[in-house]
């Protein structure tokens, strides 16, 4: 019997969560022990002394820096055009991915899906060995690492809110690291340990099969560090804390959309299979408890929302604002620059630029070279530019207050559904903001997944006051977010205009109307196009005023004819 078995059979009390900084230090040390097995670290922190402390500890890995705008040339190596021209023979630059090793991705929250896909693929292939430290400097919950990377990197650390006094330099006894690395190969894994980690992942609602594998690697690194010949309870707990906690589905009180479908209970296997209802009654596996305790629950909830928000950022068609692109669209004049993966060489412009200088350059370089050959210098290079249209994000701000009679709310839902269908045809992104009572909520961040939009809308309850100003404020936030992602936001406000809750959440008709107008003006000033749809039974003069403040058209929702509305809205938006 291994020591592991003895401890496994007696479920003890949930472990006390280690101090936050100890957790950081442990994660960093484990990454140093086995960067390849753990695949890397997702470090969510703003630039600052705390982050510097972590990075300093990681310095022995000698990570090479990678920028989110890195093109394929930087990743895979490419022809170095400038050097080739200067030297007269082919010069290639080495790629970061082709040589492997630890990489440091700065501003990882800005990492485009294309780069994430390439890095993910490289992380999946064992040769050359690669690990990635992703520095996520996202300020908002919505700004975060692309899911393709979040799924693949083993560890997650968030330094937000950690006081500087609690931190200390992360140091290791000399020789400890190399000793741990040497022990790593020899650590044996009891099959029970593997099965328990898999079970814990399952109970935490982690769907990806990568998580248990990464947790195993983490447990092995922990065992190697502590000098255990095989995985012990403590190693497994460490693995669950560091690898599972940020992947876990929000525990109980979150909307059902955010949790994976409930697992069908297996007959005769009641210990490991618990549904959401019984989860609180059955004593949780110690590993599950450890993973849950390791991170504050509100952080987990926010991350679940952010996972949804992180849709895609590819540039598609749509009637968005003009954007200077390098790939396609209406051609613009060529400009000097180095061709890279993102920019194509404009050959004709380059040659035109080089032509007048040929006799001079030949004279300068002597007659040793072929007189017929063109001499092109890096300064002659011209790249192409195009103007393309950005994607559009249609933000629905829906009034779900009590003044919207229940039947009327159903009609509004019908209208939004029709609009969603037309958004689908135009490949627009849609977002849904609803407001009622004393708050406005972002029910759906900009996404192209219409099924999600529909689901959120169907479950929308009605009732309460009308916090119009709050709704507009929230819509403006979403619009700013969409714009930051390169989309062109358009707000469609569906309300009866009877605002009675102010920005501060206090009732009062006059104050509420004034706040709403103010928010509307702010929204218009930010350059966001909007359209107001009057869903009231009788036209409200206040709403017309609001529409003027928004610089938007006001359309009455034709009774029981949502199709007409769709046409009217499309016309207003395209006009």
């Amino acid at each position, binding site marked *: 019997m291994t020591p592991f078995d003895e401890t496994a059979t007696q479920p003890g009390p949930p472990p006390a969560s280690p101090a936050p900084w100890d957790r950081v230090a442990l994660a960093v040390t484990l990454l140093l022990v086995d960067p390849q097995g753990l695949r890397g670290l997702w470090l969510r922190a703003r630039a600052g002394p705390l982050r510097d402390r972590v990075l300093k500890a990681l310095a022995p890995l000698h990570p090479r820096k990678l920028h989110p705008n890195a093109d*394929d040339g930087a990743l895979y190596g490419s*022809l170095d*055009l400038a050097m*080739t*021209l200067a030297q*007269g*023979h082919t010069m290639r630059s080495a790629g970061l991915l082709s040589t492997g090793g630890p990489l440091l991705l700065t501003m990882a929250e800005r990492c485009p*899906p*294309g780069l994430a*896909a*390439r890095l993910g*693929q490289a992380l*999946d*292939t*064992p*040769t050359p060995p690669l690990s990635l430290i992703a520095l996520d400097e996202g300020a908002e919950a919505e700004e975060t690492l692309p*899911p*393709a990377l979040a*799924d693949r990197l083993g560890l997650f650390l968030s330094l937000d809110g950690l006081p500087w006094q609690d931190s200390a330099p992360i140091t290791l006894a000399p020789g400890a690291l190399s000793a741990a690395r040497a022990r790593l190969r020899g650590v044996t*894994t009891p099959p029970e340990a*593997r*099965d328990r*980690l*898999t*079970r814990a992942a*399952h109970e935490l609602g982690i*769907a*990806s*099969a*990568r998580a*248990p*594998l990464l947790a*195993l690697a983490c447990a092995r690194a922990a065992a190697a560090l502590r000098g255990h010949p095989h995985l012990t309870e403590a190693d497994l707990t460490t693995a669950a804390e560091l690898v599972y906690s940020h992947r876990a589905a929000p525990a109980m009180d979150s909307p059902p959309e955010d949790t994976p479908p409930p697992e*069908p209970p*297996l007959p005769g296997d009641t210990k490991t*299979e618990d549904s959401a209802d019984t989860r609180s009654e059955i004593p949780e596996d110690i590993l599950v408890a450890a993973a849950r305790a390791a991170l504050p629950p509100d952080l987990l909830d926010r991350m679940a929302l952010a996972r*949804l928000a992180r*849709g*895609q950022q*590819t540039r*598609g*068609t749509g009637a968005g604002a003009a954007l200077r692109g390098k*790939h*396609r669209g209406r051609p613009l004049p060529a400009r000097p620059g180095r061709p890279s*993966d993102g920019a*194509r060489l404009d*050959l004709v412009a380059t040659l035109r630029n080089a032509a007048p200088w040929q006799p001079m350059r030949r004279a300068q370089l002597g007659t040793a070279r072929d007189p*017929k*050959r063109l001499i*092109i210098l890096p300064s002659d290079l011209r790249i192409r530019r195009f103007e393309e249209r950005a994607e559009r994000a249609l933000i629905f701000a829906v009034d779900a207050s009590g003044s919207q009679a229940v039947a009327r709310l159903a009609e509004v839902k019908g209208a939004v559904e029709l609009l*969603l269908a037309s958004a*689908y045809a135009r*490949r627009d992104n849609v977002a849904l903001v609803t407001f009622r009572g004393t708050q406005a909520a972002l029910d759906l961040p900009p*996404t*192209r*997944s*219409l*099924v*999600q939009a*529909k689901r959120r809308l169907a479950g929308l309850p009605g009732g309460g006051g009308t916090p119009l100003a709050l709704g507009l404020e929230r819509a403006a936030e979403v619009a700013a977010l969409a714009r930051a992602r390169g989309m062109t936001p358009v707000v469609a406000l569906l309300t009866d205009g009877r605002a009675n809750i102010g920005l501060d959440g206090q009732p009062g008709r006059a104050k509420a109307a004034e706040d709403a107008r103010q928010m509307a003006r702010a929204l218009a000033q930010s350059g966001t196009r909007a359209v107001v749809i009057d869903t009231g039974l009788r036209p409200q003069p206040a709403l017309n005023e609001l529409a003027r403040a928004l610089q938007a058209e006001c359309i009455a929702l034709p009774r029981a004819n949502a199709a007409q509305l769709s046409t009217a809205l499309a016309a207003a938006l395209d006009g």
Partner: protein
Amino acid sequence: MKTPFPFSAIVGQDEMKQAMVLTAIDPGIGGVLVFGDRGTGKSTAVRALAALLPPIEAVTDCPVNSADPADCPEWAAIIDRSITTRPTPVVDLPLGATEDRVTGALDIERALTRGEKAFEPGLLARANRGYLYIDEVNLLEDHIVDLLLDVAQSGENVVEREGLSIRHPARFVLVGSGNPEEGELRPQLLDRFGLSVEVTSPRDIETRIEVIRRRDAYERTPESFLAEWQPRDAELRARILAARAALPDVRASNVALHDCAALCIALGSDGLRGELTLLRTARALAAFDNAPEVTRDHLRAAAPSALRHRLRRDPLDEAGSTARVTRQLAEILP
């Protein structure tokens, strides 16, 4: 390069594995679209498939893997015309790839250093006679999608730019994967895929443990793990080759044709591609089962993956097409 995870060792995901094997038997079925969660073995299956497939014979220097020296494109400077066997190409098309890399473009290196106008073949050339794999296909930029649609339809890549006028064969099986939560796929591209399968994480704990057990064994002790599974891969490869040989002789009775048509009418699938793909898939399945004739069982097994993405879809319908196909199957093919 490490040997990929063996195809036979993939736990569960039977529909995905079946779809991939069937396109290996009859590439004419068209591509496979795999939609599902992260970390469910989509990429693993594609890489495993590459290792599973029998090698092809091609001209050594040919950039488009031509089988016959006479078929090599004239723009390619071919020195070695001998025939060599090489693994079936499985080419990755990464997100954000530029048009140049996909279709090929003027070889700027040679143009500038040697003053020659030469064509540098792209990913489509490399994928000829093999597979083109697009991970996160639903996030692919629209202009690349347009380009792929065109090439997938004509089987030929035509490049007309920078004074080049080049064409070369580009017949490949398109394999796409993605997560539907992150975006929809354009109906035009959807239709290009012969088969579509949905994968989910295994729901029962024992299956999950088995997945982790095998993957861990593969990573920790690759030699013994591969020794255990490679014979099964070899067996499957032999079965695929036998099915390929048997495919032309598999009969499809009028009853089977009638069943195909009745099913597609009941489902209201657009165009006739549904029937044709269903029949081809069922035929490949019959060949795989070493059956002389397409039976209802084959049709039933092939119908969900061949038809679920072709239904005229209300974009807001969340019931899912799979349920509709299953319902009609029970009704039309009892």
